[in-house]
């Protein structure tokens, strides 16, 4: 299997899907699913192969290179599996909507572009794919029109800023070294001066920081996640945003190299320390802002930002344990956040687009699979033991504590508690409590929605109980980036100070669960009662009003609301406003009178003459 084939299948399939859609929608749907699954198969076949190939010469006399290594493969498999699942999910979600052909085209195009990014072996093709991804993402975010247009606009503006920063970095690299081949660069760059390295890291850090929504550059994310069509939000949150992490890994540990990155700066102000602190801020503030959200997708979106902070914290320290934690968390995050978005999408699909947490409730009885998805998703998000999130977070915390960064560890740990509060609210308000009368006749979600949810739920438990499966690959990544190898077993990790063994946690939870379940069964049988047979101080309970959702953490809201605002967003909006006003002012010089224009010309001439005079005088 060659990489060109992969790219051809990915891009060609996307456009073919569009044209097939003009013939029949059934054909288009099945072809889209087949195409997405074919990509998974091709990438799975690439496992363990290292290759590098120029597929086009003469792009401004630069070769465009595709290459495969274990890091690329790891990201690619996650992208393709997630892409396939979300295409399957879209089948019923997008039914009876307009512009579906276009939606599938863009969906597959984003997928293809992401694969291109991770497989590209030089920065110029990296940049091309990056731009394809940004633009098609923007179009998909704006798919729903209305407020989605503004969200898409915000995204694309920030994305362009990022791309321009990357372009500057690339140009500088090209003028310095005369090549943009990543493999060649990685041998050349490490020996340059500290200042230049810092410049490179910062300029690329802005690009990837915007994509990964690191704290001061995060403002595009909540709106974009909330307004994008839900199956696409799963991709957007799961992998697309995490291209930033891939980028950070690329620039920090491949191009610049671990040895050079970790010794930039003095004392507290080293590059990776600053990055880690940014990561810590990215964890704490968004997680607490998430508590205030009443929109299910926005709540998850803020968590998407917050979890990105954990990955940054993991990779910033540049130890093999931390790298493993950061990369593993990227995968885990992709699994559980897309699972959560899919559960929300299933709810939206059945309730007619309702995602307001205050008006749902009791849906567990109607949509059990969506509930299981939601439950396992939030368990992973919190990092409850036996779900995948626990292992990666454990690795990150351990790195922080052993590296003597207790304050960063505190930020990461307190983020977990904020997470619990907000995601329990999420789960409770949607699934638990009283079922409102209007949702009495709601249907189960269709099979094409249940399948991805079940697959991802299974993955959460599998990677939580047997984390060795992905950790083996991640360990190979660690080694390929020049770090020490970890002692990975199938059920955990063994290191010098403290081991993790998930299988014995699993065993004891299982044993005690069974014992207590037997005890429970031994007690007198508890008949199930109706939701209206409920304690209400002796009164018959009022229908539809007996669910505690609005202002779920009211005492805390009263305390914290003034402090928990997205001040950065407010600041950016202010800058945007100022710029607009400035431009409005400047526009006034075009008065439309010829006399004025003549006066401008005369003044300009006078100015030139003045300069000329001055020049000649001195």
């Amino acid at each position: 299997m060659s990489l060109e084939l992969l790219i051809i299948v990915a891009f060609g399939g996307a456009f073919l899907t569009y044209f097939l859609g003009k013939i029949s929608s059934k054909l288009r749907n099945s072809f889209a699913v087949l195409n997405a699954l074919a990509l998974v198969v091709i990438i799975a076949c690439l496992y363990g192969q290292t290759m590098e190939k120029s597929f086009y010469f003469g792009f401004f006399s630069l070769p465009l290179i595709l290459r495969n290594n274990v890091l690329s493969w790891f990201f690619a498999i996650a992208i393709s599996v997630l892409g396939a699942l979300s295409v399957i999910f879209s089948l019923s979600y997008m039914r009876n909507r307009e512009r579906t052909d276009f939606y599938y085209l863009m969906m597959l195009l984003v997928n293809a572009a992401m694969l291109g990014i991770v497989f590209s072996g030089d920065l110029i093709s990296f940049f091309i794919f990056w731009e394809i991804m940004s633009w098609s993402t923007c179009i998909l975010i704006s798919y729903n029109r209305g407020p989605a247009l503004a969200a898409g606009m915000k995204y694309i503006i920030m994305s362009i800023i990022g791309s321009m920063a990357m372009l500057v970095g690339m140009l500088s690299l090209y003028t310095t070294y005369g090549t943009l081949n990543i493999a060649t660069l990685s041998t050349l760059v490490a020996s340059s001066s500290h200042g230049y390295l810092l410049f490179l890291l910062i300029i690329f850090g802005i690009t990837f920081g915007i994509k990964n929504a690191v704290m001061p550059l995060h403002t595009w994310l909540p709106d974009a996640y909330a307004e994008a069509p839900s199956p696409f939000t799963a991709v957007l949150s799961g992998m697309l945003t995490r291209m930033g992490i891939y980028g950070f890994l690329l620039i920090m540990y491949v191009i610049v190299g671990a040895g050079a990155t970790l010794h930039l700066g003095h004392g507290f102000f080293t590059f990776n320390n600053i990055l880690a602190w940014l990561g810590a801020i990215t964890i704490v503030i968004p997680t607490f802002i998430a508590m205030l959200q009443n929109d299910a997708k926005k709540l998850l979106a803020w968590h998407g930002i917050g979890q990105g902070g954990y990955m940054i914290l993991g990779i910033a320290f540049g130890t093999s344990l931390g790298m493993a934690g950061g990369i593993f968390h990227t995968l885990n995050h992709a699994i559980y956040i897309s699972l959560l978005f899919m559960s929300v999408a299933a709810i939206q699909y059945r309730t007619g687009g309702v995602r307001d947490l205050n008006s749902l409730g009791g849906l567990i009885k109607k949509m059990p699979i969506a509930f299981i998805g939601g439950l396992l998703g939030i368990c992973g998000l919190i990092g409850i033991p036996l779900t995948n999130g626990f292992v990666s977070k454990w690795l990150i915390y351990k790195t922080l504590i052993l590296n003597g960064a207790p304050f960063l560890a505190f930020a990461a740990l307190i983020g977990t508690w904020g997470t619990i509060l907000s995601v329990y609210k999420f789960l409770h308000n949607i699934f638990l409590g009283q079922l409102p009368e209007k949702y009495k006749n709601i249907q189960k979600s269709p099979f094409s929605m249940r399948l991805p949810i079940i697959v991802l739920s299974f993955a959460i438990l599998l990677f939580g109980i047997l984390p060795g499966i992905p950790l083996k690959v991640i360990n190979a990544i660690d080694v390929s980036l020049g770090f020490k190898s970890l002692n990975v077993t199938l059920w955990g990790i063994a290191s010098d100070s403290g081991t993790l063994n998930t299988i014995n946690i699993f065993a004891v939870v299982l044993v005690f669960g069974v014992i207590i379940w037997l005890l429970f069964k031994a007690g007198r049988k508890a008949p199930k009662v109706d939701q209206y047979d409920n304690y209400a101080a002796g009164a018959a309970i009022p229908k539809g009003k007996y669910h505690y959702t609005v202002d779920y953490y009211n005492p805390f809201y009263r305390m914290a609301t003034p402090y928990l605002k997205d001040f950065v967003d407010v600041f950016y909006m202010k800058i945007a406003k100022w710029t607009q006003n400035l431009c409005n002012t400047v526009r006034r010089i075009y008065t439309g009178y010829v006399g004025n224009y003549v006066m401008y010309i005369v003044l300009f001439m006078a100015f030139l003459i003045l300069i000329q005079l001055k020049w000649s005088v001195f």
Partner: protein
Amino acid sequence: MDRNQLKKWFESPAKMGHKYSLHVVYFCTGCGIIEIPPSITARWDAERFGVIPVATPRQANLFLITGYVSVKTLKAVIRTYEQMPEPKFTVGFGSCPINGGMYWDSYNTIKHLDKYIPIDGWIAGCMPRPEAIFIAVTHLWTLIDKEMADGYKKYKENYRYYRANQEQLYGKLDWPPLFSEEDKK
């Protein structure tokens, strides 16, 4: 705890448990409730009998109705009684639940509470002193021992009778019947 007690514990732990752990839900309608605070606090200390107040009927097994029951509050009494888990015991406190007491000819006060829910014992008096509660508790122990505190069984067996009496007052009730409405004889 003498040896006899110990033997009983081994023979029928459930019955002994019900005896010595009476979790009470108080129904505070009338003046009777004023006698409850001294009885559960330091002066008389009901806790030494294992009698403690609990918050919801789901957690309780003794229902103490303290004071007159009006037609409106009877609804809540029935609802609370039906939400208690079996086995459950009911005690009427004061003379009003027994026969109406001083409200014997009031158009809006229930005269005989045991026509609407089964009562295992009465504490007569207007008002009874807190000591009377403890006498009632010890009597209830004897009744539980002899399996005579069987109000909840009676309720199940004669549910149609009780439900009919309840519905005679209110018309249709807001909640569905607790048992299938057949006399089990």
